[in-house]
Each structure stands twice: as structure tokens, then as C-alpha cells.
């Protein structure tokens, strides 16, 4: 999961090549990689790739601070996703 997300962010959202290769714990907000529109782009990708819906209440900086926290957030969604499908 980390690899998929890291690759997507590296290829689609990082505009400054100096930030590559992207470490999983790099702050996406402080480094300027994520702004309002790139967050939307990332959310659309996560929803399509992982079959989840990111609600308003989940749009917190701590959920999208780094690749690691994004993965942690997605893992908290796994049980809900399975329950929805089950």
C-alpha cells in the first residue's frame, strides 16, 4: 500500500524534483506537495484505487500528513469496507 501511494504522489503530485525520492514520512503539507487541489486529486485516486469514500469528517491534516499516515488512515477504513461488502 505504501509503495502504491508513494508512487502516485511522486509521479502525479510532486512538482519539485528536489523532493524525490519521497520518503514515507515526509510531511506532504509542510513540503508543499499537498494543497487543496492536489488533496482532491489524491482523494479521488484513493477512492478509486481502494474502493472507499473519504467523508468530510476524515479530511483532517493528520490523516494526510505523510504516506505513512495516509496508509494508517486507509487501514482504519478496511474493517468498514469489509463490513460494507460483507
Amino acid at each position, binding site marked *: 500500500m505504501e509503495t502504491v501511494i508513494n508512487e502516485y504522489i511522486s509521479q502525479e503530485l510532486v512538482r519539485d524534483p528536489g523532493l524525490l525520492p519521497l520518503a514515507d514520512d515526509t510531511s506532504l*503539507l509542510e513540503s508543499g506537495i*499537498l*494543497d*487543496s*487541489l492536489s*488533496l*482532491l*486529486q489524491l*482523494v*479521488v485516486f484513493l477512492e478509486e484505487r481502494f474502493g472507499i469514500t*473519504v467523508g*468530510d469528517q476524515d*479530511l483532517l*491534516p493528520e490523516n*494526510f500528513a505523510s504516506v505513512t499516515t495516509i496508509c494508517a488512515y486507509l487501514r482504519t477504513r478496511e474493517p468498514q469496507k469489509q463490513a460494507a461488502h460483507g
Partner: protein
Amino acid sequence: MGDSHASRLFRTAEGAAYWAVVAPALARLPAIAGYRIACWRGDWLCRRHVAERTELARNLRQVFGAELSPESVQDVTQEWFRLSSCEAVDVKRLRRGARPLQRLVEIRGREHLEAALAAGKGAILCSAHFGSFDSAFSMLNACGFPVTTIGRWQHKYTASLSTAERRFWALVYAKPLQRLRHRPNIEPWPGRFDVATRAAAALRANEVVTVSIDAPPLDSDLARTVEVPFLGRRARLLPGIVTLAQLTGAPVLVGFLYRSADYCHQVLEISPPLPAGDEPASAFGRCAAEVSAAITRNPAHWRYWASTADLATLGLVLPEPDRSAAAASSVVAMN
């Protein structure tokens, strides 16, 4: 110093009295009388506020050059003050579900918005700080279109306003407008990173999201601006509307509220959707061109003429070195 302080106090008191007492009364008069009196007040402001009038005329001359004769500059300046006064009456006519205002506004192109929503992906209504744009958005919501606006309430950001003044404008300006919006305004203040996702949520719920694309960018947003042809020059604007449209699949329509020569009646013109599939740069250039054309046809309708700081941030005029941006950037509704 004493003079300017007294003058500012008088101006603040007059503006407060107008918005809190006079405009609500004018909004209850027959429209022709209410708006006529608002125009008289606009003429009085135009004569009295010499500095603002001079700044406005200078900015018009800088941007339009020889396209506007000296007489036209004078007319546009006077008209600008009239429209500012009329806007207060529009806001106060939003009472009772906006019916008093609806009676005076013809919506042309309503079918375009209905067709866009029928497709189920919401619609983005691209507009500008043009005429009574805020009233138009609220009235549209009252007409049955669920409208949410991306935009800052300017009284929250105008540095020269006191806390009491902010509360006052929130009460007399923002509250009646917000009451007729589907969701609270999505305010793109610095550092807020969920603006686009909240707008996308509204679009996914098949709602209308309105955006005024002519806002001067904040310092924190300057890196994301693009330069586009605008009013015969090149302006720095934020193109996020196009990305939002591409990521959500929502069509972009353009809408402006024009005031008629009798000052009572207005026409809200909504365009068909702009062509989808364009490159982002050309798609945004098209939006900017629509705004620019509307302003060129009706220059008095544009809010920013009286603020050299805002026009300079947009890249349309040279900045004034002797005035701070915070002090000068106070166009708002506070006239």
C-alpha cells in the same frame, strides 16, 4: 490626522446607518422609489468620497486607456457608486425567501443549469465580483438550485476593520446572504487544505458551486496563479476551478447579474456549459475571457476598481508605494 479620523468615523457611521436602517426601509418601498433613493445616495457618495472617486477614475484610465473617454470615466465612476448603494437594497430584498428580489430579476439560461444538474455531476457557476453577485447566488438558491459558494467573506479579512465592524458586517451583509445558501461558504483562507474536497462533495451531491475567479490571490497562493489575458492586459488568477471541474466531471457555466438602466430590474445571464476536454490552460483562459468581456461591457459593475492594491495584486495596475495593501484593500460592501 484628526480630519482623516473624523472623516473615517463619519463614513463608518453613515455606512452602518445605511445598511442597518436605510437600506431595509428602501427594500420595503416600491422598487422604483427604493432604488432611486439608493442612486441618490450613490451620487452623494461619489461627490463626497473624493479620494475613492479619484482612485477609481485613475484605475479605469490605467486599464482602459483611450478606450474610455474622460466623460465615460466620469459616468462609470458615478455608476459604480450607484451600484454599490443599490447592492444594499438587493441584500435587504432577500427577506421572505428572496421573493421581493426574485420579482425584479429575470434568469436567462436557467435551462442550462437545469440540464447540467440533470446529468448528475453538479455544476460549477463561474462568476466574478460583478454587480450584486452575492445576492444572485443566494437568490438562485431560493429559486430551487442548491447553491454553495467558494469565497471569503471579505469583512473577515479586511485588516482595517475593528472587531465590532466585523460583527456588524457579518450581521447586515453575510447573514442574510448565507441564510439562502445550501451550505456555509467554503472559505479558502491560507493553509486551509480541504477547500477543493468540500467543493467536490457539494458537486457529488449534485449541487451548484459558485466561484468568483477574479479575486486577487493571497500571498500564499501566488505560486499557483497563472497569467491570462484579462481586460487587455495579463492578470494573475487562480485556475483551480478548471482542475475542480476535471476531477469531478462537473460542467462549468458562466453567470453574471446585470442591472438594467432603471436600476430596479436585473438580468442573471447563465451561459451554456463551456466546452469540456480543453487543455486546463485554455479552459481557464476561456473563463477569464468571459469575465473580462462582461467587465468591459459593464465596467461599473466590477467591484475592484476602487482598490488599487487589489488591482495591483491581480497585475492590472502598478502598486501605490505609499499605501499598505492592508489599508487599501478594503473594497468590500462597506460603501
